[in-house]
């Protein structure tokens, strides 16, 4: 076995699909006790070139790699955001990164939201928990390209006030005339003045939706999907207008290693964003 020299390290695809680019951490923001936001810049400021809803494999050399959704819009190409919850070894090490540090980035990976299909339509985004991070890539996109969209509704639910992500954004969205934003927590604390209840309890705050002209994106934990889909279908929105984003264990990110398979579908390449009609046939997807 010999080791071949890479033409220009670090490399991607040409030499090995598995070698990440060296991203530079520009800014770290603590969002909650468990989540931090990382602004990452690629070498020479090259844009990541993603579409909303895609993800990257983030790696710490010597520790490992994990899939993280991209939390910012491609309309802001100088850098991109990753919202990382500290749940395991790799994410624990990512949380120790400080501005100026290097982090491995492979991607963008997967199939995101087809934004062309959203253009000219009303859009409803329903985000639960950490699902707000990938949702933010679509939200920012719509706000940056606002004239290209009709009405824009956003519902966001967290388990409790302390778990609310992107508080600055939440304040901004609440004041913005560009988005009809509603927020809820499952369990209130003493300071909480807002709505309490699961995210489906926000649906009565929506105006009458135009079924054929409304596109829906649902991003959250698996348990949330069927309840939200039910609310959406009850408003006569056709299944083909409903999109969901799935979470899975992923290692290779390129449709080979098998971990993310739901039925015959590789979530890492054909997803993580799926049309609901497609998901219905995948029994393993929503179990």
């Amino acid at each position, binding site marked *: 076995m*010999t080791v071949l020299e890479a033409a220009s390290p670090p490399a991607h695809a040409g030499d090995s699909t598995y070698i990440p680019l060296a991203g530079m951490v520009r800014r770290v923001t603590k969002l909650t006790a468990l989540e931090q936001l990382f602004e990452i810049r690629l070498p020479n400021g090259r844009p990541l070139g993603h579409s909303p809803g895609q993800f990257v494999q983030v790696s710490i*050399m010597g520790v490992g790699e994990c899939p993280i959704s991209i939390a910012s819009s491609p309309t802001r190409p100088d850098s991109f955001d990753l919202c990382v919850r500290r749940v395991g070894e790799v994410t624990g090490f990512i949380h120790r990164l400080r501005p100026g540090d290097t982090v491995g980035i492979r991607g963008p990976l997967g199939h995101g939201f087809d934004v062309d299909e959203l253009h000219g339509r009303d859009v409803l985004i329903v985000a639960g928990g950490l699902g707000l991070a990938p949702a933010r890539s679509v939200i920012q996109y719509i706000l940056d390209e606002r004239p290209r969209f009709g009405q824009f509704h956003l519902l966001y639910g967290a388990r409790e006030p302390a778990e609310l992500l992107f508080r600055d954004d939440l304040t901004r969205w609440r004041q913005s005339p560009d988005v009809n934003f509603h927020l809820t927590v499952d369990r209130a604390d003493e300071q909480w003045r807002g709505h309490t209840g699961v995210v489906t309890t926000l649906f009565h705050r929506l105006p009458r939706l135009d079924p054929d002209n409304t596109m829906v994106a649902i991003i959250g934990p698996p348990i949330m999907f069927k309840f939200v889909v039910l609310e959406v279908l009850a408003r006569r929105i056709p299944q083909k207008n409903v999109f969901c984003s799935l979470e*899975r264990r992923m290692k290779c990110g390129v449709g*080979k290693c098998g*971990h993310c398979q739901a039925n015959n579908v590789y979530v890492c390449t054909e997803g993580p964003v799926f049309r609901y009609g497609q998901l219905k046939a995948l029994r393993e997807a929503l179990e």
Partner: protein
Amino acid sequence: MLDRVISRDDLHALIDGLALQRRLIGPVVRKAPECRPPWRYFYQPVDRAEQLDLSFSYCVYSPKPFLFPPQETLFQFERVDGGFTARPQLADRPTALVGVHPCDLNAIQLLDHVFSAAPADRHYRARRDNTFIVGVDCARPCTDGVFCADLDSHEAHGGFDVMLYPLDGDAESAGTTPGRYGVVFGSRAGGEWVRYGRRGEVPTAADERTFDRYQRQKRTAFPHALKTPADELPQLLERSYDSLLWEATARRCYSCGSCNLVCPTCYCFDIKDQTTLGGDGGQRRRQWDGCQLRGFAQVAGGHNFRSRPAARLRHRIYRKAKWIRERTGLRGCVGCARCDRACTARINTVEIYNQLTEEV
């Protein structure tokens, strides 16, 4: 149609020539002190053709590890100036796999498809492109319990440079070494190996008749075990997702992953890092993973998308008989029955298919 016929001695001379340029891997009976009869065959490196036993029954593992090793380094990294550099590691050692049965050739065709699909896996491709494959046909089933004929994978459909058909000795009397082989070229390199080696003869009409007889005998030599034809297994499974049989069978499953370990078409893997003692460098490595192991589909935070053994068993069977076939048009299972032989709980694949057949 045969391209050549070749005597055993001439074949050995060709293989010995191959061994001068390539690492030679083939079936070898292993009589290790810790083993007891019946002796088992393994693919392992050898120096000369006479060390190989080309009339072997079956090898415990397929030759997959020589194309997709149980562990391999994807790249080496070093930490420098707060960043890192990485160098891919690609195997370029020329290798010859000699004595690959049709079932395993069919499995290699699936691996080729998966790892060549965009983005191509350079690590697999580097090994594969440097591997010369000589297949050897089975005149009859290698052992009880195989169902390769049900899947038409008792015949080679490609994946070889040269295919050998044992033309005498083997069909009549078990275990004897054939004196002559019919040769079919599968690639230019395969044809050149035989022609430039100046061994073997152009087949005569009598040789072609012998080959026809061989193929006719083969048609009746292999049993069919499945009550549902392989082409209809996808539909059978489509109807069987909610069968109680998954729970009933998986009750016996230890989730040990032995079936994954010996399967020639399993290609799932995990990726892990190893560091040097100083922590300033290391390797990112991949190793085989198995969908029957408990944590295979578990995400950080603890949710397991297939937490029940029944869900994992069903996933494996669907993948082998339905999903891979639907996605690639290739065989996800080649009927070698290695999984059945390796199973610590004696779960039997054919039994599962046949029980499902009787249910609906």
